[in-house]
């Protein structure tokens, strides 16, 4: 038989050739990545997912551990010493330093956990999604509003299963909160106060001037990634990068995605119409204030305004961190403690207080709680609650329903959380926000932080 190729030249392809290779081809089927079978496809539930972890020295190792029941086929970290323990534990996984090389060369990866510092979440996740890999990305989804929007759109385009690592979103209590609020337990909610005990890392500090050598095993250029280059210093990593405007999203970005989740979900919030903030400042000498431009402040208060939506009244959400708490409500019983991190929802008929992940949610005073007829559970529960957050994603990777904090939810949520930093970095101004177009409409200066500035050679 003859075949014509696209250029019209006839090639010989014998029937024996064709049939003879069919058997080999059948055997070869199993060596072809599953995604070839059906595009960005789904692993059958009975089979194990091939997972890679990027940024596994810190929180990432918890995420990887939660996915141990699957195949951990690759681990990537720019700091081989910091991640040494994890590499050793999963010795069968191929070890990598550069996620781009890993994705280029290792073809059996089907899903990627991204637990790098915030400033590299977007570039890593995007690269994975472009190649049809499902992604689980630690919170905040991204450092900036623009990156969150890009990831949300990419998830839809590449039709991959996604999840943000705000594990509280899988707990029963946040679902109860939604059910109570939407049942009208406290009437129309017009105010929410959210607070955290973060930062527990240094903030309000200036850039170090010393330039110690880069430790062995750390690829500093890769760690910096898309952010502007600066000399290595141990103050940045591990963990404390959260403080730095070039690398993290501060206490608001770090914990807002946990603490504000109940409000965002139960009140069906999307884009705020305005935001304003004030924050602490350093006093270096008498009457001389020092405004830090390198790190987020030690403490801040952020006020978001949301418009009326879907039968719900406008609501103001107030965020506090750095040790600042909202006013203790008068009707909270004496002796009853406010948690270190949590929320108070204020409605026309009462208030609810809860912890970081909506745990211990109670209408107060307790007399009202006892009088409240709780509605039946109607929002599907996640097996394992917060402990089942990764498994929720894995089920989605295998063709199950979308994970509960997939990017359709967590993308806009992250946009709202991190846009608060626009106000933090422009204190004392009420910024009017056009969420659809990702733009502050009354202050050009504030828009400088909506999109990241990519270092040469990096882009989304």
């Amino acid at each position: 038989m003859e075949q014509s190729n696209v250029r019209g030249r006839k090639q010989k392809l014998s029937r024996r050739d064709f049939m003879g290779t069919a058997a080999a081809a059948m055997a070869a089927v199993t060596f072809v990545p599953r995604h070839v079978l059906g595009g960005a496809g789904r692993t059958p539930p009975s089979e194990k997912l091939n997972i890679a972890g990027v940024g596994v020295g810190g929180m990432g190792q918890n995420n990887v551990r939660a996915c141990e029941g699957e195949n951990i086929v690759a681990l990537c970290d720019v700091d081989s010493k910091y991640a040494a323990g994890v590499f050793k534990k999963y010795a069968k996984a191929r070890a990598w330093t550069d996620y781009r090389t890993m994705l280029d060369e290792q073809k059996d990866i089907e899903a990627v956990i991204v637990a790098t510092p915030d400033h590299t979440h977007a570039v890593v996740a995007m690269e994975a999604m472009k190649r049809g890999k499902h992604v689980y990305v630690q919170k905040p989804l991204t450092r900036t509003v623009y990156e969150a929007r890009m990831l949300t759109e990419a998830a839809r385009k590449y039709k991959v299963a996604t999840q943000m690592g705000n594990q509280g979103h899988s707990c029963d209590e946040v679902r109860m909160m939604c059910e109570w609020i939407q049942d009208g337990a406290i009437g129309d909610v017009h105010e929410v106060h959210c607070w955290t005990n973060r930062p527990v890392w240094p903030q309000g500090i200036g850039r170090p001037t010393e330039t110690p050598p880069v430790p062995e095993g750390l690829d500093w250029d890769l760690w910096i990634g898309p952010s502007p280059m600066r000399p290595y210093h141990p103050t940045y990593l591990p963990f404390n990068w959260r403080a730095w405007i070039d690398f993290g999203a501060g206490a608001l970005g770090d914990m807002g995605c946990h603490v504000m989740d109940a409000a965002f979900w139960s009140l069906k919030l999307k884009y705020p119409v305005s935001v304003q903030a004030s924050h602490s400042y350093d006093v270096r000498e008498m009457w001389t204030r020092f405004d830090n431009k390198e790190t987020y402040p030690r403490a801040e208060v952020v006020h978001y305004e949301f418009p009326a939506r879907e039968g719900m009244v406008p609501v103001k959400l107030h965020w506090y961190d750095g040790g600042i708490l909202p006013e203790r409500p008068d009707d909270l019983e004496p002796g009853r403690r406010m948690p270190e991190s949590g929320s108070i929802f204020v409605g026309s008929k009462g208030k609810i207080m809860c912890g970081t992940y909506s745990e211990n949610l109670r209408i107060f005073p307790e007399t009202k709680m006892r009088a409240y007829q709780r509605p039946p559970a109607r929002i599907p529960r996640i097996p394992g609650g917060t402990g089942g957050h990764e498994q929720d994603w894995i089920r989605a990777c295998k063709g199950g329903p979308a994970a509960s904090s997939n990017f359709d939810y967590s993308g806009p949520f992250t946009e709202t959380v991190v846009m608060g930093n626009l106000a933090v970095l422009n204190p004392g101004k009420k910024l009017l926000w056009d969420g659809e177009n990702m733009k502050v409409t009354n202050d050009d200066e504030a828009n400088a932080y909506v999109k990241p500035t990519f270092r040469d050679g990096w882009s989304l």
Partner: protein
Amino acid sequence: MVRMVLSLRKCRWAWMLVVVLGLLGPTVDRATAQDEIIKLVIDELKSGDPERQTGAIAIVRDIPGETITKALAEELPGLSPPVQVQVLSTLADRGDASALPAVVAASDSADESVRVAALKTIGQLGNVSSVPLLARRAAESRGQERKAARDSLYRLRGGDIAKAILEQLAASEPTVKVELIRAVGERNITQGVKPLLEATAGSDRKVRLESFKVLKVVAGPEDLPALIDRVLNLAAESDRNEAEKMIAAVAHKIEDPQAQAAGVLAVLPNVKDVKNKASLLRILGRIGDSTALPVLRTALKDAEKDVQDAALRALCDWPSPEPVPDLLAVAQTSENRVHRILALRGFVQQLGLVSDQPADKVIALYRQALDLAPNVMEKKRVLAGLGGAATLPALEMAVSLMDDETLHLEAESAVVRIARNLGSEHAERRKAALAQVIEKTKNETIRAQAQAAIDQLNGAEPAPN
């Protein structure tokens, strides 16, 4: 046999088999198999069946190599627009720059969706040669096309892109220049300060204004002397507002708030031109550095009216209440009626910022403002300012004015706002004041607001056991 395989094209397994044969079959000529895959893919893309087209797109995204890219690029113009859009997106994902010429050609398509997809893809595949195209497109188009071109200018990769943008900036016509200047800001090209400063002296107004806007982003404190010099030598008076905003924005980047005005203060004594002097005073007002207050106070008494005016406006917009006594004095004593009114408005605005004085003292100042107000309109402004206060004396003052025929609406509104803002204190007094509003007001909106505030106060109380 081949016909059988082709007839199974709707089956995804058959697709996989075709790919495996092409990639792994040891005795099958690889080039032949690949050519066959390409032909099948192109046929599927031309099939008119959306499901088959989507299946083909999913496959080609993963097949490596330039051959596939070239084939897709060659076939692109002949595909229907919806398929072209998908193929363009796939070419972006493949990241193979050999497709760039075809993508660039597609950016001239008669179909807008294809042009938009092509412009987005150029952002992924493009290089320095793409800069002029994207800038021109951003200048000449509107809507989604403009957005795509601008976004791609922002996303272009490569260390030489910044240089290309700056070089192109020098050579472009004004509308294109504006887009390139915008890209300088979005990409934070700090090497752009010098060319942008030059552009602020050019002949095109839009170029000048965009340059001032972007300089706010890319310029640093070290550039302030040059920027201030520009303000003192403007190409056109109509640029002055934007230029002043630029200086203030860059000054705000100085970490020590009490050093932010230093650059302007250093230059001011030597400036004789009245317009420039006024400009610098307004800039001091925007910066809000308290070290500038003595200079502004002195300027209030300047012989030149424009200088006085600038100083007054700077104090009126001051971000903290330090100028309150100065503004009160102007409101009481100025011979200039406009200045008296401006000062009064600034005074009321800044009373809202006072936080370290007893409430009674602040209310006494509001009453002074009310007495100074020359007409009903200004009295209403005072009441609007009072409504932002959150003290019991403010509430009492607002209630006392509810019987004034000309001011009752503003007084009622102020009562509602103050009652809401009073936190958890004085619940009974607040309810009583709100009840008075409900009884007296003829405005339905205010009545509803007052009722809602009472309901809220009642809802916050513990339920009886």
